């Protein structure tokens, strides 16, 4: 049972204060706990910091790891930047899409996995690379990628 978004913001405020510099930490806490940032949380952060809702939305919209839509229990982020692409990220994407039956940007109907492509994750020397939740996987092959995906609960 996950906590109410407003409660998450309240405890984040206790930890980080309510200055503008706390905005990112509040967003991170909500995103980590719920997997996304619901509208209620944006309103609560704006009220806590004393800025407009639009300001918080502007900040979170800059970061691709933040989402305003609910996502799957696992988030797979395949690097889509040039080094990984040259190392074969296209084949990896095709394999994962086939394995899951969804396209990048979508979530499986059972909410098991959300598949995203991402800009560089700093593993250019070990591409193709992806993040599964917080865990990096490097030098992927299509079969290896399928195996990792299939193992996600």
């Amino acid at each position, binding site marked *: 049972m996950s906590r109410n978004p407003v409660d998450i913001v309240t405890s984040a405020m206790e930890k980080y204060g309510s200055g503008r510099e706390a905005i990112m930490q509040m967003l991170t806490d909500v995103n980590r706990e719920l997997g996304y940032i619901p509208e209620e949380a944006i309103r609560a952060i704006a009220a806590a910091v004393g*800025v*407009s809702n*639009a300001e918080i939305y*502007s900040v979170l919209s*800059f970061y691709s790891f933040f989402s305003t839509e609910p996502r799957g229990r696992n988030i797979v982020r395949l690097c889509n930047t040039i080094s990984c692409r040259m190392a074969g990220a296209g084949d990896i994407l095709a394999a994962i899409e086939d394995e899951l039956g969804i396209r990048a940007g979508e979530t499986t109907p059972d909410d098991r996995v959300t598949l995203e492509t991402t800009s560089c994750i700093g593993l250019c020397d070990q591409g193709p690379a992806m993040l599964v939740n917080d865990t990096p996987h490097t030098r992927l092959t299509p079969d290896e990628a399928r195996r990792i995906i299939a193992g996600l609960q």
Partner: protein
Amino acid sequence: MPNISVTINGVNRSVREGVTILEACQTAGVEIPTLCYHPDLSLAGNCRMCLVEVEGWRTLAISCVTPVTPNMKIRTHSKKVRHARRTVLKLLLAAHNVNCPECERNGNCELQELAEKHNITVNEFQTSPKPCSFEEASPGVMRDNSRCILCTRCVRTCEELQSVAVIKPVGRSNQVRISTFMDRGLNEVPCTQCGQCINRCPTGALFETSEIRQVWEAIEDPDRFVVVQTAPAVRVGIAEALGFPTDRSTGRMVAAIRGLGVDRVLDTDFTADLTIIEEGYELIDRLKRALADGDQSAVLPMTTSCSPGWIKFIEHKYPDLLPNVSSCKSPQQMFGALAKTYLAGKENVDPSKVVCVSIMPCTAKKFEKERPEMNSSGYRDVDYVLTTRELASMIQEAGIDFANLRDEKFDKWMGDSTGAAVIFGATGGVMEAALRTAYEVVTGQEIPFNGLNITPVRGMEGIREASITMPERMAKGYEFLAGATLKVAVAHGLTNADKLMDRVRAGEVDYHFIEIMACPGGCLGGGGQPIPTTPEIRQKRAEAIYAEDSALHFRKSHANPEIQLLYAEFLKEPLGHRSHELLHTHYRTRD
């Protein structure tokens, strides 16, 4: 600060230390193109149009954000600069919907003007044209992000001048757009519809929701009786909107509107005078209840209610202070309610045939007329609202030679006005007009200021205050005010209003009466006024407003002969039964 020596294009100049390269060049009469720069706003330095070369620097300098240093050698149109600027301009144009003939700002667009000045005829970066992306639902302010160049002038306007902050850059990289909370429509977020963003947009990405077509249709329908009202600030803006220098042009404005083929040209100034009577008596009533009767329900300070941007702002942000707001409708809405009752009777026309058109310096007025409660005449009190710019466009379309028009007068019944009404168009004007009348009501004497000019409430300072001490001898019934000091304050621009209301909420101030106008400078700087706007332009418009006041025969609202007739024949008394039905309103809390 001391002066320092710099070289601009090979010429030695002495400039104030601490100024930017752009300011130094402007002072020296050297023009540098700008887009994201605006004199009313903080510096952003994001458009890169104002690049200049500084000798010894590896890269070009962004002149609007770079301070001058001693002996700096600046070149504003070297080969490197020209090449960079042309590239920047071409990239901006390539990302812009360049369908100029279909744009509201065609002919008055900073991007178009720069393209012309830089002779950009071929753009190698141009790809397929961007489609329009109109936002249609907003009552006053419309957006088309396909024309946006991401300069963020609107974002800074909304945050810095208005403390509203509903528009922000959203997204990243080539997905950035100026948007709202959850990408909602402007009508679904706390936008006040003030239109200040429109006045500062360098392109046509922001513009008013137009009703020109509907107004032409009403004029062309022989069954409709089209009644036009003109707000105070329009008469000092219309010449400017038609390309002439800032000037008051009341008589020519009336002639031009009549020339469009409307049935009656009347004056919002008439109902501005009426507002003063009703609001003045409301203030006196609140003072009496609070000071003489000890009535706890009499809320002070009372604030003005004529600015619809301000009303929407307080409904969103200070709903607990709504009892402070005068219950008087704005002059526009008082006019509408009377046009379809009192005027229809005088003119012997069926009120259902009357079409009430307002010419306003304002975009929030388009929202105000749509408020569901604004139907006390039994009809929509005001049918259409045109901005000063839209009126100018109609005058041009009709081929009216504005420069050579002879002055004409407003039609009767609701066409008389006073200097007190004209100054509604400038910040401090409603306060001054109210004091001219209220003081005389309670003391029986004229307010003791030279020529009735209450200069302490005039000017462009963001928040101004004044106090007026009552004499010992008061008119009958107002003895409770003898020797009392009336404290008043004036704020313009919602950021100043916000500061002032914070202090009111905290109980830090003991004003009796507060005038608030949503727009910097008051209505003369409204979101429907000619573009561009700068502090200098607004100052000129204010001078024109006060010149008009001085030139008018009647200077006090209660001296308006048609107002006296309206009370004698129709309303009977200020704050009376009919006034409450037609001229007063209520407010609501908004999310």
